[in-house]
């Protein structure tokens, strides 16, 4: 009986094998290796991981937006909002009245006529426009060469406008200046807000892209158990982390190049440092933030928790590291703290290189800060990384 039971079982087994064998070529025959044995070199795994990561990013349509469209839109918006108004034209309102035309005539005759834009309005409208910030100054003629100014000493444009218009009216009316003065105009590319902004945006973009790109990718792979699957192979763990970090480099070149080109074409920014140096800085920054990104994502299990962490890490740098405005505005006491932030080092180095043409060798401490942040974060990430 026992034998019969066994025989039945083996019959079933053979039968199944035969059925399938009829459907498909025999798997055994194919399983025999007939090609020469392959041998992988030390860096085969790293190289394949890097290429796989690049392909994945390239096939992700959102990447195009975040990497290319978003920074350009940001630069465009900020560049327009903070553009230098042509020769600082000041808008003033002249209150309509019997002598209003005198004011307009005087302004027309003054040397400053090109920098003053005057509208003729009724008193309530003029004052309303002034309150809303449309006009920097309201001028009312009181007849017989006597004028009244409405201005707000707390608004710098209003103060400037007052001085400018008063000077215009006085000199048009024949005031003689007791001193002979001359001015040299200095409003060339290099000292404008957009010139300050573009390097800051490049730095911020390198940080954003590295932190989000890496943080999300890592946690996603952890959730999918892909990390666990990888460590079930002989893959070197450091190769994996290195490949993820380096996958940012190609995108970084595109991002930095795009923003620089955009600044040059649209805002006629002058780039004094060599492009190669700027790209090397970008690469150093990208690797440094890749390390920080790996460390940030080294334990998180969920996308939600890593998002919070990434924001927490980046927030101080958005505020302090001089992206949109100079950190000189913060109290001098905290400047040393601000200067050791990686984004501060990157932004300062980018500004020095792009705007002043300072070589990297002249700013070793900034390079060192970036290397230390990247290196220490990478080592800690490798130590603490949760693969499962």
């Amino acid at each position, binding site marked *: 009986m026992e034998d019969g039971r066994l025989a*039945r079982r083996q019959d079933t087994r053979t039968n199944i094998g035969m059925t*399938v064998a009829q459907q498909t070529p025999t798997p055994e025959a*194919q399983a025999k290796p007939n090609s020469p044995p*392959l041998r*992988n070199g030390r860096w085969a795994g790293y*190289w394949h991981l890097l290429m796989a990561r690049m392909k994945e990013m390239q096939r992700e349509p959102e990447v195009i937006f975040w990497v290319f469209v978003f920074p350009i839109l940001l630069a465009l918006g900020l560049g327009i909002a903070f553009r230098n108004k042509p020769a600082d034209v000041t808008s003033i309102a002249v209150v309509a009245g019997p002598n209003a035309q005198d004011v307009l005539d005087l302004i027309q005759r003054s040397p400053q006529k090109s920098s003053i834009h005057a509208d003729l309005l009724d008193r309530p409208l003029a004052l309303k426009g002034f309150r809303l910030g449309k006009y920097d100054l309201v001028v009312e003629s009181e007849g017989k060469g006597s004028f009244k100014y409405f201005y707000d000493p707390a608004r710098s444009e209003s103060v400037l406008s007052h001085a400018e218009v008063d000077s215009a009216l006085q000199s048009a009316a024949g005031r003689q200046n007791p001193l002979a003065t001359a001015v040299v105009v200095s409003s060339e590319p290099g000292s404008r807000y957009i010139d300050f902004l573009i390097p800051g945006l490049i730095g911020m973009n390198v940080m954003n892209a590295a932190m989000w790109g890496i943080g999300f990718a890592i946690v996603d792979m952890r959730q999918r158990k*892909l990390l*666990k699957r990888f460590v079930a192979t002989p893959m070197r763990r450091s190769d994996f982390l290195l490949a993820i970090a380096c996958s940012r480099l190609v995108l970084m070149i595109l991002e930095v190049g795009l923003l620089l080109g955009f600044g040059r074409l649209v805002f006629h920014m002058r780039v004094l440092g060599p492009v190669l140096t700027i790209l090397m800085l970008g690469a150093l920054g990208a690797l440094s933030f890749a390390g920080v990104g790996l460390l940030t994502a080294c334990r998180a299990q969920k996308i939600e928790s890593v998002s919070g962490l990434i924001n927490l890490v980046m927030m101080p740098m958005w505020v302090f590291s001089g992206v949109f405005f100079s950190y000189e505005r913060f109290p001098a006491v905290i400047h040393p703290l601000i200067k050791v932030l990686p984004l501060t080092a990157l932004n300062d180095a980018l500004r020095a290189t792009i705007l002043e043409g300072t070589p990297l060798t002249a700013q070793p401490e900034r390079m060192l800060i970036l290397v230390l942040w990247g290196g220490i974060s990478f080592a800690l990430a490798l130590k603490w990384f949760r693969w*499962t």
Partner: protein
Amino acid sequence: MAAAIQCRDLRKTYDGKVEAVRGLSLEIRTGECFGLLGPNGAGKTTTIEILEGLLQPTSGQVTVLGHTWQENSRQLREWLGISLQETRLSEKLTVRETIELFASFYSQPRSSDEVLDQLQLREKADAWVGKLSGGQRQRLAVATALVGNPRILFLDEPTTGLDPQSRRQLWDIVRAFQQNGGTVLLTTHYMDEAERLCDRLAIIDHGQVIAEGTPADLIERLGGHHVVEFEASGNGNDGANADLWRTLPGVEAVRHDDGLVCLSVREPHTTIPALLDAVEKQGSALQHLTTRQASLEDVFVRLTGRHLREE
């Protein structure tokens, strides 16, 4: 035959309280297909992941191909091919790219083309992983395990959720690997899979091995050879009746299952006439009567009083 995998007195406690594995010992021989069969939550995945070196046991020893994970993990990784229970491979890589990626981790991998052919993924080679069916994904998961040319193949629930045809394809792949001299360790909660595929198996429940042997042997020993199932009207399934059924000739065990009485019998042809007489004497009528070969399911129910698919 030499042991491919040995473990002694494995224990794994999660967070100091949940005991997933409680003193488990196994010996898997080179060249055999060994199955861990048990319901969900029995500790199969924890056990296989400890053997794969992915989890640290709380206590106990593991030896794989004569090495321990502590001293020689890098070499062991070259020798093992692993398919985890739930890995979602990158959806935006193609099948070929995925296989080549995994191949690149091994010092002497098999050629990707060969693996593509063996797992019948050739026509999907350039399709994104995200576009594959469940069966194709599972074959790809096994392909990533086979491309390293492993000596031992670990499969954790390889056919869960697959259609019958995909399951058979996978079984063939496992057999082909075994026929080329490979050793296979798999977990499953499908008794038919264990019965057809495994040379030997261990039935696991609550983190312990409750029975071990060849499928035929386990069925012989614990399931009875045949099962006679019936329902008789006019009587409850009370203890008195159970005693009555047990006295019938050839009956080895009696159990009640969802209104049915199941008798494990050695020879149905002697038991059934006696059963018919007994029912008639009681004045009740037979509602159903079926006989079938005993299965691993019967073994499991006999050992635990529960079905494999129940909690």
